[in-house]
């Protein structure tokens, strides 16, 4: 990616010299700088990093009118040599955010607050998904709308606090990366 960017840059430098007028040069330079920023933004949109922790694609679902709660989902990768723990989170559109775990046992949907956070093993991953561990956004200030982005933070016991942006997907959306062969959602089996 970076190499390609350099190549493009040298090619465009040559192209740049071929423009004689100062206005033309300024216009091209402005356009190039603009494009550079667009590229950087797109690359950052789905990943957030702090220390050895990388947060992939934080997302939530649109909520029906008047809904007071929402769920927050993401994948956390720990590139470090020591275990870490997601201990808390915030979400700008929620009065407060808790970490919950959902399970379905014998047809009964069970929800329980998670004590002590979600462990992210060294060189391992932890997934927060609709049918397992997830962030529970409570006292929503307004409905979440598909296509919007909402700021939040994630706090890890060792890595500290990282700013993230949650992308709002459709009401019944499911994790998109599952098709990558990474396996089941949160290792939770749905029965009934």
């Amino acid at each position, binding site marked *: 990616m970076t190499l390609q960017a350099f190549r493009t840059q040298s090619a465009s430098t040559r192209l740049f010299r071929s423009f004689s007028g100062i206005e033309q040069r300024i216009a091209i330079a402005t356009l190039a700088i603009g494009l550079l920023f667009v590229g950087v933004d797109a690359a950052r949109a789905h990943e957030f990093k702090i220390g050895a922790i990388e947060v992939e694609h934080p997302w939530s*679902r*649109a*909520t*029906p*009118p*008047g*809904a*007071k*709660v*929402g*769920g927050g989902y993401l994948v956390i990768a720990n590139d470090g040599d020591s275990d870490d723990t997601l201990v808390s989170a915030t979400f700008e559109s929620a009065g*407060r955010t*808790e970490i*919950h775990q*959902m399970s*379905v046992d*014998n*047809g*009964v*949907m*069970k*929800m*329980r*607050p998670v004590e002590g956070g979600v462990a992210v093993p060294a060189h391992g991953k932890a997934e927060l998904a*609709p*049918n397992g561990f*997830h962030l*529970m*956004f*409570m006292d929503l200030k307004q409905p979440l709308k598909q296509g919007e982005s909402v700021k939040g933070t994630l706090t890890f016991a060792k890595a500290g606090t990282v700013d993230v942006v949650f992308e709002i997907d*459709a*009401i*019944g959306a499911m994790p998109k990366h599952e098709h990558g062969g990474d396996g089941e959602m949160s290792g939770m089996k*749905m*029965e*009934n």
Partner: protein
Amino acid sequence: MTKRRIAAIALAVIVALAGSALVGYQLSGRGAATAQRGLGIGGPIDLPATTGKRFSTADLGGKPYAVFFGFTRCPNICPTTLSDLTLDLEQLGPLADRLQVLFVTVDPERDTTSSMKDYLSAFDPRIIGLSGTPEEIAAVAKAYRVYYEKVPTEGGDYTMNHTATVYLMDGKGELTGTLSLEEEQPTRVAKLKRLAESG
């Protein structure tokens, strides 16, 4: 010879015990979800509805219905099920009018018919939401063997655990099947189609 016979009897006993344990496990494991006709699950429903009036299954005039219990402060199962049912009804086309989808709250203290009406506006307009007094809800939940309980969360708030199965009831009000969470849309639509055509 006797030893062999004893061994054979012991083996038979073990096989029988293992067999019955397996059957018992499967029965308890499946629970209400695979309950068959005649197990007495279901019953008339007569509750205040999001239509602004009371809704009674007696008024359905033999139309089959699908009923689901949940609550609006439910982040995943309830909106997902309602969203799935919305897509299913769309797939059914005109047949969708030959069945009724009901959403009964298990959190009647916070879910009023008017707040449920707002909530349901995000889904198929044919889905009717039902609330009532805690006693009314308890009676309906008992008839459908729906389990629900409050789970305290931080700050004195609570969330709910509840049975998340969609019950498919025929025109006589008898349970004919269920929809479960992990089923793909074609399976759900096929079941709903059968239900609609049975009416």
